[in-house]
Every structure is written in structure tokens, then in C-alpha cells.
């Protein structure tokens, strides 16, 4: 069954031209119409029952507009959208709160806005309060709440909905780690039990975890529609893949040493760098004079911009001794633990702890699927079944 269907949907926004101009209606009446902005152009897609669809794309690609149309906040300019089932949107979950009302009153208000009946809310009130963890403050006006409490209470109400279709928009970017884990667990429960999910996020790792399929949007058009893994790769490629390795000239010729190239290869299998297999990283350099205590760093960044890991010849005894001229430093990794994806690379050379050459985001590393990995990285391991009776006795006595 198809739960959601977008059929050639276009959405136009009229942007008022020079909104702050002092001109009034009598002047405006003769001016040409306002500027048009097409947020969606001819967007068509379907989501099947029980499917989790991720939508990725740059800011302004039309992601939020899709969500707004789905949740009836705004209407399409052209085209038609069909929604089968009760839909709940978790878009800034606490925006419906009234600051003067207490937490409990806001639960009634917000729950009703999400389409819950008062009797339903009354029945679930205790559970909602408990889940949110704001039980001590539930009869205090929410204007006295911290922003974290706000969001937790908001999400807690939404978590008690049992919609057919769930829309998620960056909701997980808030709350502390423990609360985020609870939210993810709830979403996973809903997903496991066959609810349809549409998820919009810049957190590509979260899209990958949650979704089986994804749409790549660019300037209001659907660029690609396919398995989440492939779409995310494509999106990353689009975002920064084309930059390639560039050398920085900011250092000038008086820099004693510069990185000139970087390459990643795999001795086995030779076609691509794969998770769980060996990898060779080679950094080419040029040194102008003899340098002592030199450290090379190859930083590998997640798509999100966080440092994933780093290769370095740093050690307690100090760095390398570099002769003038060109050369290559080779890092050999027997087992590559990082998960498949497209990573960005920074290169740096340090002499006696002083960075003398840095190349930021100068290359990419594509890691292809290799050994099966779930989670954040691969752990090299072997396994066997242990049948030592004395060990079993210890296990069972532990209770």
C-alpha cells in the first residue's frame, strides 16, 4: 500500500521585493509583481507502508517545504499530495507551548493540537510526565522551564501519539544524550512495528541508521531516489567531492616543507579501500631544508565535520628527520576499522610541535563496504565456542 504520494508537486513562494521600502500601496500598485521563488519543482515520489524515507539536500533544497505540505501547514501551488492514515509531525515539538500555562496544561493544549482527545491525554498524562522527566515542575508555568525541559516535554507528548505516519525534522538535535537515546529507541519501536516514517536531517549518519530509502533534493527538484547508502554517498560527493586535492599557496615558498599529494590504496583487495581490509595511505612531501622532529598528520573527518580518526607518526621519542627534496611517507593499516562512506581529509606537517603546513579538506577518502559492520566502526575479532565446565560453573553461579 502507498501511504504517501507526491504527484508533480510545485510550490511557489512570493517574496516581497524590498520589504522595508517606504513605498505604500499606491506605489506598489504600479510596481511589477513580487519576486517568485520555486521551492519545489515537479516533485513526485511515493512512500510505501512501513517504509522509512530520508530526505537529504542542502539548505533551501526544499526539504522543509515537503514536510510542511505533508503536514498541511501550507498547500502546494500545483500538483496533488495524497496521505493515507493519521499523520503526526515532530517539527520543533514544543512550538505549541504557551509560556503562561503550566507543564500539565500545556500537555493538554499541545496534545490537542496534535489531534489527541482530552480523554486520551488524561489517560496518558502520568506516562507523558514520567517519560519527559520534568515531573517535579509539571505544575510550574513553562516560561520558567529550561529549553531542554521544554523540548523533552514536547517530545514526550509526541512519543505518546501512535500515528500511522511519522514526520521527523531534526528533532533529535536537542536534549541530552540520555534523552536522545530514548527518542531514538521510541522511533525505532515505531519503525519496527510498521509505521511509515519520513525523516529530514542534516545528520547523514542518522538518516543512514533510520532509513532504508532516501531522496536527494537540489533546488526544489528530486535529483535521486534510491537506497539510503547510495543517496548519502551521492550527496556527499555533490557537497565536497569535486574539490579534489589542492595545495595551499598560503604558505609561500619559504615554507620548509609542504605536502604535495595524498593517495589511499589497498593491497588486498586491490580495487578499492574497504572496511575491515588493509589500507595504505601515502603522503607526498617536499622539504626545502633538513628538518628534525617532523610529524605528519592525516586527519579523516566524518561527513558531519567531526574528526573520525587520525594517522600520524607522532611518538614519544619525537618525529622524523627529513632530508631536503621530495619523498613519500607511507602509513600502513593492517585492518581499516572505519565504516563505508565518503570522508574528508586534512593534511598537516608539524616541526617540533609547530604546524608549518596545513591542507584542509584537500582530498576525500571513499571507503567501500567490506566486512560486515554495524555501528560506528569495525572491530577485528575471531570467535570460538567455549565449553570449559569450570567456566560455565562461574557463569551460572553469578545468577
Amino acid at each position: 500500500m502507498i501511504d504517501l504520494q507526491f504527484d508533480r508537486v510545485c510550490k511557489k513562494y512570493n517574496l516581497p521585493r524590498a520589504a522595508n521600502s517606504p513605498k505604500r500601496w499606491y506605489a506598489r500598485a504600479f510596481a511589477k509583481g513580487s519576486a517568485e521563488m520555486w521551492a519545489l519543482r515537479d516533485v513526485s515520489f511515493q512512500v510505501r507502508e512501513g517504509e522509512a524515507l530520508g530526505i537529504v539536500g542542502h539548505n533551501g533544497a526544499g526539504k522543509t517545504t515537503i514536510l510542511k505540505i505533508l503536514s498541511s501547514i501550507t498547500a502546494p501551488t500545483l500538483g496533488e499530495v495524497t496521505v493515507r492514515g493519521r499523520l503526526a509531525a515532530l517539527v520543533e515539538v514544543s512550538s505549541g507551548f504557551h509560556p503562561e500555562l503550566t507543564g500539565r496544561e500545556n500537555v493538554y493544549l499541545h496534545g490537542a493540537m496534535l489531534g489527541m482527545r482530552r480523554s486520551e491525554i488524561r489517560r496518558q498524562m502520568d506516562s507523558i510526565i514520567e517519560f519527559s522527566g520534568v515531573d517535579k515542575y509539571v505544575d510550574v508555568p513553562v516560561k520558567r522551564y529550561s529549553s531542554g525541559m521544554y523540548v523533552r516535554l514536547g517530545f514526550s507528548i509526541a512519543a505518546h501519539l501512535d500515528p500511522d505516519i511519522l514526520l521527523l525534522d531534526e528533532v533529535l538535535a536537542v536534549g541530552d544524550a540520555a534523552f536522545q537515546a530514548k527518542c531514538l529507541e521510541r522511533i525505532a519501536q515505531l519503525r519496527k512495528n510498521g509505521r511509515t516514517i519520513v525523516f529530514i536531517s542534516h545528520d547523514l549518519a542518522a538518516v543512514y541508521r533510520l532509513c532504508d530509502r532516501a531522496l536527494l533534493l537540489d533546488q526544489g527538484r528530486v535529483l535521486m531516489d534510491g537506497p539510503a547508502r547510495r543517496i548519502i554517498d551521492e550527496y556527499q560527493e555533490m557537497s565536497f567531492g569535486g574539490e579534489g586535492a589542492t595545495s595551499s599557496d598560503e604558505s609561500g615558498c619559504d615554507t620548509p616543507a609542504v605536502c604535495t599529494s595524498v593517495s589511499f590504496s589497498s593491497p588486498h583487495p586491490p580495487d578499492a579501500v574497504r572496511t575491515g581490509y588493509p589500507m595504505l595511505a601515502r603522503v607526498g612531501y617536499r622539504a626545502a631544508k633538513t628538518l628534525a622532529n617532523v610529524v605528519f598528520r592525516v586527519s579523516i573527518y566524518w561527513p558531519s565535520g567531526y574528526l573520525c580518526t587520525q594517522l600520524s607518526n607522532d611518538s614519544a621519542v619525537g618525529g622524523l628527520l627529513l632530508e631536503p627534496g621530495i619523498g613519500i611517507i607511507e602509513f600502513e593499516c593492517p585492518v581499516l576499522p572505519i565504516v563505508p562512506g565518503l570522508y574528508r581529509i586534512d593534511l598537516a606537517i608539524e616541526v617540533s610541535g609547530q604546524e608549518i603546513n596545513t591542507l584542509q579538506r584537500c582530498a576525500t577518502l571513499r571507503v567501500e563496504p567490506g566486512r560486515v559492520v554495524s555501528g560506528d566502526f569495525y572491530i577485528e575479532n575471531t570467535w570460538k565456542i567455549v565449553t570449559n565446565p569450570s567456566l560455565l560453573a562461574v557463569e551460572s553461579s553469578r545468577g
Partner: protein
Amino acid sequence: MDALPEKEQAPNVDAGPLATSIDLGLPLPTAESERNHARPIKVIRPPTFSISTIFDGVRTLAQYSDLLYTLSLFRLNVRYKQSILGWTWAALQPLALMGIYTVIFTRITSISTRGTPYPIFVFSALLPWIFFSSSISSAVNGLILHPSLLTKMYFPREIIPLSYLAAGFADFCIASLILGGLMVHYKVSLSWNLLYAIPIIAILGGFAAAVALFFSAVQVRFRDVGLAMPLLLQVWMFTIPVVYSLESVPLRFRRLYLLDPIAGLIEDFRSVVIHGAVPGAASLVFPGVITFVSFTLAYAFFKSSEATMADII
């Protein structure tokens, strides 16, 4: 060889008892295959102005009736929170106006009320008028006071202006107690005809809803409405028989004068309360029809502009 078994019998790392998965304290969602409910099918299309949207609108509104109730309740609650006099404010406004008009129209100048004491004469008209005017003036600003609601969440938008109307009605009920007190004080004889006040107020409320829906939809686009509203309502009050009686209007203007449905309704309300008079059939039917037609048009207009409110607010 001795060391090995000892090491195995006393493992260094003990993870402790195995924890179960995160307990959310929530009932697990039922599996989709076991859920046996008819799924509503909703088709979202570009907005159009048509009377048929009203039926959809009313159906959705019925689904959200609890929201209308909750919001109206909290509207009252919030209005009087952090105020010392609280609910008394609902009665203070008509009382104060009654005092001022009584001074003006009995001490400074005088106005014919056919022997009715002026305080109850003016209060019995102020009461429905304040219900009408303050509901409209607060309802019209309702939507633009909640931009984040409009851009972040969906619910039938008419619930916001209607909740102000409901809160206005609650104020009306509180102030009615004062009217009751005045009736006792001036020894107005009670009769069953007082029940005619109910259809009068119902029509008045319906017309207020029509005005509020229309102007709040326009207000989202043109803020001029909110700025013009106080002036409009002030002028409006003097074009209907609140501080004077309908009889003081010259007969040749009477027909034109009564084209405003509110004028007839206010006068009817007063004569029901003070004289226990039965309103003429025509004086209820005409405003009733006007209200029905204008409400239908205003609601259809509201529904057609609802879909783009979030874009332009």
C-alpha cells in the same frame, strides 16, 4: 601452568548482571498488521475558494473540537493569570462604561428611555455589544499573535479566532450575573420570555464569528485590519442603539438603520431583558439569514486562504 586456571576462574572484567533494553515506560506500539482501523485518506490540493470546502472544514473542525475547548479554556485562564482582580475584570468593563454613560446621559444631557432607569437601560445593551466587539477585536489579532503555531503545526486555523469568541462568551456569562443583579435591584419582572435572549445571543455570536473569520484571514496579509478595527468598532457602537434607544431614530431612517443586523439584535436583547417583550419574527429572521450567509462566505474565504497563511504571515 598453575597461573592459568586461576586466571580463568576469576575473570578480571565482570560486566555485572545483564541489563535489559532501554525501558521507555511506554506501551509498545501495536504491530501495523494487528492494527485494525480505517485509515483516513487525505488529498492535499492547491487552495480554491468554494463553498464545498466548508463541509471538509466542519468535519476537520469536529475532529479537533477538543482543541477548541482546551484553547478557549486556557485563553480565559491565561488572560486572568498574574492579575489580582482576575475574573472580576470581565464584569468591570461593562460596569465602568455603564457608570460613565449614565453620568453623561442623565447628568450632562438627557436621553429618552421611556421611564427605564438609565443604568439598566444602557447595561442591557452594553452587555451583548461588548461580547460582540471585544470578541471580534481580540479574535482578529489572534492569528498574527501566534506566528510560530501557524508555521510549525497544523490544526484548523479557525480554532484560534473561534477560541477568542468562546472566551468572549464566557466573559459575557460572567457579566450577565451583574445584569441579573441590576434586574433584581430595579425590580424588573422576570418572565419566560427571557429565554428569547438565547437565540438573539446565538445569532449575535454567529455574526461575530463571520466578521472575525473574515477579518482575521485578511489581517494575516494586511495588518491594516488590526489597526482599523478599534476605530471601526467605536463608530459601529454609535450606529446601533446602545446608549440611545431605537425609538430615538427618526422613522424615515429606521429601515436603513435596521439593515445592520446588530442594531436589531441589540434592541431586541434590551427589550427582552427589560420589558420581557417577545421579539418580532422578522427581527430575528432577517439577522439570522444575514448571519448564515455571511458566515458561510466568511468561512469559505477563511478556508481558502488558510493554506497559504503560513507563507505570508
